[in-house]
């Protein structure tokens, strides 16, 4: 079994700044050496996914979730409930122990801003038509359909049916991931600097991109082929590294200068929030490979690894 410890043992070093959290890993600030990979055991991930998107409200509401109360200090010190990035990101801390339902919970609480951007902004929908991409292929409904299929795959008892559903949903998520990546790629259109894409719309676009990556990863994981899963994680890691992210100052300026009905302070807070969520999401995807290494070194099969973590008492673990 994979060796693990409890992050609480390391909190003093986190508080002193010697250790920092990046995505799902703890690392030594000075050397960059990875200390361990954070994992939710039991139903911690599921409970975390029910928190509100506002960190202040999240902390206030944590009393509703007894298992989170027990590890509240750990969660706070690691900024897993105190930062807007952590509470709003649809990405998990590595493989979702709670199942894809935790990603789905967050996705469904997000406001649907992108669909209206795609249909109402002429420059975008013309571009998609030229590329032969149906707007419907990027719609929220399409994403929900894929997530529902994935959740169905988790519940079916037939192994054959499970793998079949996982394969088809992996294929759907892959297609959506490619489309969203294209929109973020700035090849023919720049969503970062074009004020026709609202900040909420940009947030929705990035979140759906992340959700597609998470969906594809999870579906691939469910297929049970470790080699395939490892390759999927690697490709996604490369993909997010190559997203040409614009400097947030320029994103703000593009909208402060030309959009007339924004309060500039409110706009700045919105831009800051989007970047915090994006940075957290990308960090979690980037660090999935560390967990893959742990799983490989422990010679575990994917299903037994996840089932073992799910069966443990609800806590936050540090794979070491």
């Amino acid at each position, binding site marked *: 079994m994979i060796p693990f410890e409890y992050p609480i043992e390391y909190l003093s070093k986190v508080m002193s700044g010697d250790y920092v959290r990046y995505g799902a890993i703890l690392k030594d600030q000075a050397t960059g050496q990875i200390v361990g990979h954070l994992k939710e055991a039991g139903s911690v991930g599921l409970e975390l996914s029910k928190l509100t998107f506002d960190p202040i409200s999240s902390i206030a509401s944590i009393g509703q979730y007894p298992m989170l109360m027990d590890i509240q200090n750990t969660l706070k010190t690691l900024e897993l409930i105190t930062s807007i990035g952590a509470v709003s990101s649809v990405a998990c801390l590595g493989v979702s122990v709670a199942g894809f339902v935790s990603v789905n919970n967050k996705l469904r609480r997000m406001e649907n801003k992108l669909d209206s951007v795609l249909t109402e902004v002429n420059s975008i929908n013309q571009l998609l038509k030229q590329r032969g991409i149906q707007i419907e292929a990027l719609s929220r409904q399409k994403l929900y359909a894929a997530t529902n299929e994935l959740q169905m795959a988790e519940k079916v008892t037939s192994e054959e049916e499970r793998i079949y559903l996982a394969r088809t949903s992996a294929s759907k998520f892959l297609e959506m991931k490619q489309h969203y990546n294209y929109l973020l790629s700035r090849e023919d259109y720049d969503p970062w600097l074009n004020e*026709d894409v609202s900040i909420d719309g940009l947030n929705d676009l990035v979140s759906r991109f992340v959700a597609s990556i998470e969906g594809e990863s999870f579906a691939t994981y469910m297929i049970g082929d470790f080699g395939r899963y490892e390759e999927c994680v690697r490709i996604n890691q490369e993909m997010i590294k190559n997203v040409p992210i614009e400097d947030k100052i320029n994103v703000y*300026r593009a909208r402060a200068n*030309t959009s*007339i*009905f*924004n309060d500039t*302070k409110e706009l*700045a807070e919105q831009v800051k929030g989007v970047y915090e969520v994006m940075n957290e999401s990308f960090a979690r995807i980037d660090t999935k490979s560390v967990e893959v290494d742990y799983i490989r070194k422990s010679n575990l099969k994917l299903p037994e690894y996840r089932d073992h973590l799910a069966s443990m008492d609800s806590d936050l673990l540090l794979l070491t």
Partner: protein
Amino acid sequence: MGYEVLIEHKLEQSKRMDTIKQRLENALDTELAEMCQALKIDKTDDISKIEKAYQDASGHILSRKFMSVEVQYKQVLIDVADKLKPSFGWTDFRLKDSSSEEEVESAIESFVAERFRKKWTKLSARERKAKEQELKSELEKAGYSQTTIEGAIGFLGSGAAGIAVAAPVTMSVFYSGVMASISVSLFGMSTGLLLLSGTGVGLVVSVPLLVILLGGNSYRKTIPATLLLIRIRRRLEGEGLL
């Protein structure tokens, strides 16, 4: 002049245009270009030239009022606020009172919004619809984005309630050249031209009439330039939060 008085005098002199200089030093190229347009000088990124042009325009107004050519930014702001105040009479701001430059700037922004609100609520539904169409057409011609155009229509279309809840800073585009002709048709010559950024759009009024209405060409430079300086501060405040 005694030593202490001399020090105080020097400090006052340095305060006079520090704000302007700081804002111009942090202005984007596009903002400097707009300042040059507003002040009717050749496009330049030489901040000292722009600063001088602003001093000249505002000093020209104030020298007649205060018989002094030494101008503080707050003095300029108070004069602009007095000019834009929608209701009769001056504002309560005084140079030596405890109000900050930012407080006077906020008042100026709210006066601009209030002027629009008053005019807008007096229009009939049909007249408002016609103005919305006119606005949409002008903004499309000027190449504004769909988001900006829809925001402008939504803003005007929301009527008094919408204008009341919109932050004054959001009115900044209404002083742009593109909006000048709309402003003139909406609000009549004097107020509309007060808000011109000096691009030349809508400058169809005879000069003598302008002088009588606005107190001279200097206001047509000082007011839009001051609104631009306020906009620069708002932008920088937002960037400070990022």
